[in-house]
């Protein structure tokens, strides 16, 4: 009989190893699933986990996809450490895309061509504000009405999706677009500057890494970051210390909403360059998984973002090369998170064999 015994001190070693164990277990289950579907498990794993890194172009695609994941997940980490369960990052991403894209669209349709150094920050700032505004609704309802931020932020995702559809099918539709639900393509002045020629990779990745460093400093070296963490770990201690729960709530949601909005704007000013109904492919939800796999830590988040974008691209490759449905990626991601949570038990508990009691 196995028994769980509490450790006196949480195990640092396990905190680092647990995601790796979960990854290995996921890979094993993936291999089993491939076999069950009649595909060669080795080939399946290679396509999902190794092909995406095959060559400069492939790596640039991985980093391109990782950029918004890093950005969103960093904001979510602040929230989750503060025990603010912002599940609606997807909605904040959409509003950021709408706001940033709206700025770009306005500049384009008005024929205003600004230097890149002005236009791009304008677009990104629009995105940040859009995401913050959407998150502010959740913050207000939690602060004033005590409404669950989980349910409110989630409901707002569905509202945001309808809002995107409304705008793109309606007032913002490109009149010269053959009635397709899409906006005009944005003027080149609003596009994010590229980082590597012959790839789609843009400066966003550099921006994301800068934000990661800034987040580390904020969480671990500032008093405000300390307050947020105490609020998440022991609310009674936070009250005892005199930390304002309201201030922490707003800080966490504004940071998170702003970063999610930034990610949304980077997507439309980067690879997409217009607004369509498909501007976000569940990035806001994938970022939640990235956040946990990355241990809610900036460095872990960067690594986990790379891992999960590999899986996303692997899914696309799996569809084109092996005929596996793209939805498989979603299964693996969900599985990874569930296994991670299970393995995390080992951080706080040791597994022991229970002794048989002599009768």
């Amino acid at each position: 009989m196995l028994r769980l015994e509490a450790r006196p001190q949480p195990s640092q070693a396990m905190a680092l190893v647990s995601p790796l164990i979960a990854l290995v277990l996921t890979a094993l289950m993936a291999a089993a699933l491939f076999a069950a579907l009649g595909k060669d498990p080795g080939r399946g794993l290679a396509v999902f986990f190794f092909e995406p890194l095959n060559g400069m172009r492939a790596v640039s695609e991985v980093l391109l996809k990782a950029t918004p994941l890093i950005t969103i997940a960093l904001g979510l980490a602040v929230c989750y450490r503060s025990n603010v369960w912002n599940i609606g990052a997807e909605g904040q991403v959409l509003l950021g895309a709408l706001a940033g894209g709206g700025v770009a669209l306005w500049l384009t349709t008005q024929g205003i061509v600004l230097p890149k150094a002005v236009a791009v920050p304008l677009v990104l700032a629009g995105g940040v504000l859009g995401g913050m505004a959407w998150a502010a609704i959740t913050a207000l309802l939690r602060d004033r009405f005590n409404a669950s931020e989980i349910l409110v932020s989630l409901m707002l995702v569905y509202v945001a999706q309808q809002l995107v559809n409304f705008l793109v099918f309606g007032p913002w539709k490109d009149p010269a677009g053959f009635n397709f639900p899409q906006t005009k393509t944005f003027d080149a002045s609003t596009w994010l500057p590229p980082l590597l020629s012959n790839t789609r990779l843009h400066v966003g990745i550099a921006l994301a890494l800068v934000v990661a460093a800034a987040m580390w400093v904020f969480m671990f070296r500032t008093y405000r970051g300390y307050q947020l963490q105490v609020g998440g770990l022991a609310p009674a201690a936070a009250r005892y210390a005199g930390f304002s729960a309201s201030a922490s709530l707003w800080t966490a949601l504004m940071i998170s909403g702003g970063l999610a909005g930034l990610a949304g704007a980077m997507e439309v000013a980067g690879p997409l360059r217009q607004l369509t109904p498909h501007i976000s492919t569940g990035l806001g939800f994938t970022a939640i998984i990235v956040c946990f796999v990355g241990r809610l830590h900036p460095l872990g988040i960067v690594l986990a973002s790379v891992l999960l974008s590999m899986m996303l691209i692997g899914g696309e490759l799996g569809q084109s090369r092996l005929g596996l449905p793209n939805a498989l990626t979603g299964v693996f991601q969900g599985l990874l998170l569930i296994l991670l949570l299970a393995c995390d038990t080992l951080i706080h508990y040791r597994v022991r064999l229970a002794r048989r009691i002599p009768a």
Partner: protein
Amino acid sequence: MNEIALLVAATLASGTPLALAGLGLLLNEKAGVLNLGAEGIMLVAAIAGFAAAFTTGSDTLAFAAGALAGGLLAAAFGGLVIWLNTNQYATGLAVSLFGYGFSAFVGVGYVGKKLAESSPFEVPLLADIPFLGPALFKHHPMVYLTIALALAIVWFLYRSRAGLVLRAIGEAPESAHALGYRVRWVRLAAVVAGGALCGVAGAFLSVVYAPLWVEGLVAGRGWIALALTTFATWRPLRVLLGAYLFGGVTMLQFALQGAGVNVASQLLAMLPYLATIVVLALISRNPAWIRINMPASLGKPFHPG
């Protein structure tokens, strides 16, 4: 007049899956476990039910498949949060994300497929009453079973000893443990029962209500059902009432479109979600009221000494 009768009928049908899921989650939460995986469970059960109905042509088997799928996924969730004491919020979320991906994956082969036609249901004699007939008595049996279920749960929770034990465990699991009750097993039973009910709700959606399968068919109803339990202050009959209310709001968008109201369809489609937000805000406003009715141990981990 006939339109109103049809609206009432549509409201009842639309509210039924919400009520089923809401009642299932109520059982969960009365025992102290918060299951954010409801959406994922409903999705997996929806595809399971659809697949069963498509293959066998039987509604009953579809519901059974849905209940089984829901119960199994809920059992996995229960194992994690009750025995390994993983964070209830994160685990529930993980189950929802997994359920979304898994149902999309399994459902790939069922998109666009049609189920065999089934004959419309009618309660004999009562269905012929003008207005009340079409409004109340021409529903699928599951609609009536749901109401009966709500009453049964009321009896169970407030008139039976087993229900008292469940409520006690949700209130103070440490005390129940000290008295010798097997807290973890009771909680698991509540979670599995709740999951099975969510499963039946999911199957109802894909097999009776829609009836079809697309990725993400459940469209947030799992989350709305979670809001329902708070809205109903954890009382079964209020869950039923709230479900019909939300069902009604969902139907409102079609009624308004039909009445020629000149608002874009996407904006009308926001109505159920906006309504949920408003209701949540109004109900949660009084923290004291919530605290009296909420099972005190909801969401908190339990460690047997």
